[in-house]
């Protein structure tokens, strides 16, 4: 067991799914508008009263025993409009950070939510941000359990007319933790070490990145910028142990993505480049093979049992999937040129790890926790163009939306400011690409890079909200304002 950093936390006071993921099979996000302020506050009070007979309870971060994992999980996030609708005082609302108060629709250009992704085209009522007040998220082990919990919740709400439901959006995990593009997801998350009830705990895979401070995702702790403190909502108890969530519904155009992979192979492949397969191109765009194996360690094969860096300390495959960095003291493995993992690949852009970047102090300051579940039916290679919407229901969790989430989206994903060799290009998978301006380079050893261009945007934003995930203490406080 590694040495615990000594940060102390009361896990019972934070909402679940922040430090530790649920790995649930299904989810339903129910967006509501507050209809009756008093009734809504009563619902919040009941959801943290400790009596499950009265109401389903908010799931906390409390650790469960291996054989006693809950089968349903309930959480709630509140927008700035929601805080106002619940009756929080103006001075308290105004003490929240500016970007949270503005909401993602107002920050659309900064986030790359333009053209088809523009807020005016958002679905599920997210195009009317004033009406998005709370989002209840119910995770469950089975669809039956999900339905039962949701029925019970909505019946409780209906009794007091507390809320008007503006949308319900379901998601379901795909086999093998995959997303619709075929990649295995959620491998890289910040690793936290903390102490709760005198019990040390470690979450996250062993990797070569520094342990993330709790302040990467929670308010009231040392932040990702040592010695710099974020603005705290007032009163302080409202903020402490809270977390911000950039919730995004990201529609994925798998047809266009698969067609692009085929096109690249037909245009750039051939007998001289037998290695250039669709799987190779998919891996180069992501930085990982579709089965999750990182290019930084296995540049030539997705087979993780194949030999890799000789001095690499093998532990177990699951940890190995994240135990890499781009610089290396062994010149053979140092990847400054991006020969293994391209400089513009999604995972390298969104988290440069220890690589040389322009903003020298920023390498680990923008780390966020990603919790997501796909929606829509699995993509069937034999039944393409089925016109079913599919994508990801993504929760991007952090303590400062502007310093972490927005900075990744703006400076790194859509501007490529971190490395002069990719500045002016967008992330090939997540970026706001345009046919006329998209560009991605696959560096090759000893020959000119393969330059891909003319590809469209593969991921479109169809809804988003900035949510505050209050602590249990803060939920009680909100219920009594």
């Amino acid at each position: 067991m590694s040495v615990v950093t000594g940060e102390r936390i009361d896990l019972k006071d934070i909402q679940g799914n922040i430090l530790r993921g649920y790995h649930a099979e299904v989810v339903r996000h129910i967006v509501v508008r507050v209809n009756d302020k008093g009734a809504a506050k009563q619902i919040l009070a009941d959801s943290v009263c400790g009596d499950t007979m009265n109401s389903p309870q908010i799931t906390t971060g409390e650790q469960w025993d291996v054989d006693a994992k809950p089968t349903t999980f309930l959480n709630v996030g509140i927008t700035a409009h929601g805080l106002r609708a619940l009756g929080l005082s103006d001075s308290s609302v105004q003490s929240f950070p500016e970007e949270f108060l503005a909401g993602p629709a107002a920050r659309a250009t900064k986030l790359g939510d333009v053209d088809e992704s523009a807020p005016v085209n958002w679905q599920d009522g997210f195009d009317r941000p004033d009406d998005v007040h709370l989002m209840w998220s119910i995770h469950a082990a089975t669809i039956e359990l999900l339905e039962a919990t949701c029925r019970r919740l909505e019946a409780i709400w209906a009794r007091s007319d507390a809320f008007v439901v503006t949308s319900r959006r379901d998601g379901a995990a795909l086999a093998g933790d995959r997303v619709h593009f075929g990649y295995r997801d959620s491998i890289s998350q910040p690793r936290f070490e903390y102490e709760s009830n005198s019990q040390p705990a470690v979450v996250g895979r062993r990797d070569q990145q520094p342990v993330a401070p709790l302040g990467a995702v929670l308010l009231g702790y040392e932040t990702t910028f040592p010695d710099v403190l974020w603005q705290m909502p007032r009163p302080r108890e409202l903020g402490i142990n809270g977390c911000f969530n950039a919730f995004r519904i990201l529609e994925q155009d798998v047809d266009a993505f698969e067609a692009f992979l085929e096109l690249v192979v037909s245009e750039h492949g051939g007998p001289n480049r037998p290695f250039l397969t669709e799987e190779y191109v998919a891996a180069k765009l992501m930085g990982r093979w579709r089965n999750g194996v990182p290019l930084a360690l296995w540049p030539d094969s997705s087979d993780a049992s194949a030999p890799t860096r000789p001095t690499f300390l093998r532990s177990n495959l699951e940890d190995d999937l994240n135990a890499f960095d781009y610089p290396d003291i062994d010149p053979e493995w140092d990847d400054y040129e991006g020969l293994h993992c391209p400089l513009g690949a999604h995972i390298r852009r969104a988290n440069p790890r220890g690589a040389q970047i322009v903003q020298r102090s920023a390498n680990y300051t923008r780390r966020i926790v990603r919790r997501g579940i796909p929606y829509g039916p699995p993509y069937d290679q034999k039944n393409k163009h089925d016109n079913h919407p599919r994508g990801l229901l993504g929760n991007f969790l952090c303590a400062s939306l502007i310093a972490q989430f927005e900075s990744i989206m703006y400076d790194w994903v859509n501007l490529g400011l971190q490395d002069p060799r990719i500045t002016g290009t967008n992330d090939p998978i997540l970026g706001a690409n345009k046919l006329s301006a998209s560009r991605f380079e696959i560096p090759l050893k000893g020959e000119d890079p393969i330059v891909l261009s003319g590809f469209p945007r593969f991921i479109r934003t169809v809804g988003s909200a900035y949510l505050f995930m209050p602590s249990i203490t803060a939920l009680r406080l909100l219920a009594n304002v």
Partner: protein
Amino acid sequence: MAKVLISYWKRHDPPVMPVRTFSMNPSDNIQVAMNLVMPLADASPVGRALMIQTLAGAVEEVIAGLNNTGIVHFARFTIIDGNLCMLSMYDGDFSNYIRDFIYNIGAAFDALLVYIKDHPRLPVEDHPDEFIDWVNAHDALQLPERITDLSDDPLKLPRRLTLILDDCPNVQLFTYRAYPGFSVAQTRLALNIGW
């Protein structure tokens, strides 16, 4: 007469200040101007001399810190009419620039801000958001590079502009760039001087 007219306009048509804008065109987000105008608490020769001596003691730290942000093309420190001005060109997001700046040279800036009238709470590391807001408020207002963006109605444009200038004496007009669209790091890489 002009003052009467302006206050009359203001009552009927309050000014709408342009906010920092972002663009999906990468070159619009590279080489952005910042003109930080900080009024000196004591603009007398003695007061200015004290401030200059403090800044002189922190020059190395300021330069090393700006170097570490990696996105500043240049930063000029100049006293103009009783104001300490920091005039710089930077790449990317304004708030990221100031946040990295705080992280890198917050302590040096704390020593300097003591000489500034109505400075934000110190140390700036403890109140980064407040400092970012303060810098934003003291940065010369960036007018749209196309002034017609202020109003679709050509008849209203002069009034809009007048009202903005009445509220904001310091404004940034357009910028000439000899090598537009190139970031600090791209320039340094091309010149082979490390990035």
